[in-house]
């Protein structure tokens, strides 16, 4: 399966978007990011920054790593060798914004998920969602999270919610949407200034903004000049589970060969509980 997203026109081969009209004035974009896993220290700033920006509540009593909500989650992976050869790497995983056969879109029974033809961002509409969780079983990246609890904040903390994001209610699925509201804000700013194009500097997701080592490069993959497009084409950039042919728009980058091998290896093999 070819992985030519970002370099050629992807929307053509995107059956989820192709039936939509192409008539909008603004230039078509394909937003994506390249995460340099060699720079990731696994500090978790992206996870916290994301949660605060997107009004994700802190853990409900009894929530754990399998029922919590972390639209971007940093996984630790290691080379499987014992001490002292052991070595590890951190993979921050948000919605991978699949461009092709987007697994979660076709399965949703009531069109609560779709690929935005303008930006290539996979949108999730919680108020349309009925919480059947079919999309979660469809997503190979475990990037979708279910609201098992009513969202609750410690007393007074709801004052700190971000007005640009509506909190989700219990019983619906949510996920990363590249902080779409920030793109909206950028558009609004541009419109107010009488411009049709947004200033790329105005649109950067919370995770990329908060990464202390600037491991996350974000931008428009269709813009040949953008740093992200260049980096995505580097020979040491790769995507997770490429063999599934979902063509994610989140790339990873590493100079270390074992890391790239690890990502290629597809499904992990081994015994119960390892990996």
């Amino acid at each position: 399966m070819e992985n030519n997203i970002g370099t050629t026109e992807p929307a053509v081969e995107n059956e989820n978007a192709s039936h939509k009209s192409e008539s909008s004035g603004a230039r078509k974009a394909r937003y994506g990011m390249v995460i340099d896993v060699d720079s990731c220290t696994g500090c978790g700033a992206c996870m916290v920054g994301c949660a605060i920006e997107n009004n994700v509540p802190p853990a409900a009593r009894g929530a754990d790593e399998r029922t919590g909500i972390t639209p971007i989650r940093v996984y630790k992976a290691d080379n499987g060798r014992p001490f002292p050869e052991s070595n590890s790497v951190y993979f921050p995983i948000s919605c991978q914004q699949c461009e092709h056969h987007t697994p979660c879109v076709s399965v949703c029974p009531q069109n609560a998920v779709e690929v935005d033809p303008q930006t290539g961002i996979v949108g999730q509409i919680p108020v349309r969602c009925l919480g059947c969780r079919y999309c979660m079983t469809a997503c190979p990246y475990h990037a979708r999270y279910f609201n098992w609890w009513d969202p609750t904040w410690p007393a007074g903390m709801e004052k700190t919610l971000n007005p640009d994001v509506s909190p989700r209610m219990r019983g619906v699925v949510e996920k990363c949407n590249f902080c779409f509201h920030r793109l909206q804000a950028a558009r609004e700013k541009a419109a107010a200034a009488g411009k049709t194009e947004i200033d790329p500097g105005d649109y950067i997701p919370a995770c990329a903004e908060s990464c202390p080592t600037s491991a996350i490069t974000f931008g428009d993959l269709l813009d040949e000049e953008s740093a992200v497009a260049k980096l995505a084409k580097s020979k040491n950039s790769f995507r997770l589970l490429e063999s599934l042919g979902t063509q994610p728009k989140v790339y990873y980058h590493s100079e270390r060969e074992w890391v790239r091998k690890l990502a290629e290896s597809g499904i992990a093999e081994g015994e119960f509980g390892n990996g």
Partner: protein
Amino acid sequence: MGGKIVTAQLTTSAGRPESVPPRGKIFFLAGLVVVLSFGWIVFPFLIYKKVEQPIQFSHIAHTGDNVGMKCEDCHNYDSSGRFLGIPKIRKCAECHTKPMGVSAEDRKLAEDYVRPGREINWVVYSRQPENVYFPHAVHVKEAGLKCQTCHFGQSTSSNLRPAMISRLSGYSLDIFGQNLFNAPYTPSRGMRMDDCSDCHKKSGVAESCVDCHK
């Protein structure tokens, strides 16, 4: 088996002479009519509550010739192009520190709100659900829509009609999409999801949910 049917019919017709059909029909119709009329006439008024505005504000008094204000004079944007909606009391205070006219409302404004610096909690007819994103800047400045396109005569209205708020969902009647039996009202159109999507389809912009839903 067939035989049984016949006997059965015989017994019944013998048991109760032809009074049966009309009588039955009457009862059936009675039920039908009662419930229908309740459902179409009474019920809609039951699920909406009328909410009066705290102050009878007259747009025309401000936008009319004698004052001649523009919409933007009160409903403006901040530096980053964010629409600020209904102005805070400090805006009214610019003129209404003391009653300007003789009307009771005028006095109420000056005395109950401006002087103590209390905000007026208006009931916004077009208050959208929390999950709706509507950028005024994009619609007004980029697309060049007139305020009236969505807000109709609001700018020339002389009084504020009570808002119709659903007891169940808490949403204003004005923003209902074209939904199941939205009867018997035809509220001022222009702020329903379908109105938005119609216009968007016509002008061919913003084709996806995330454009308007956050």
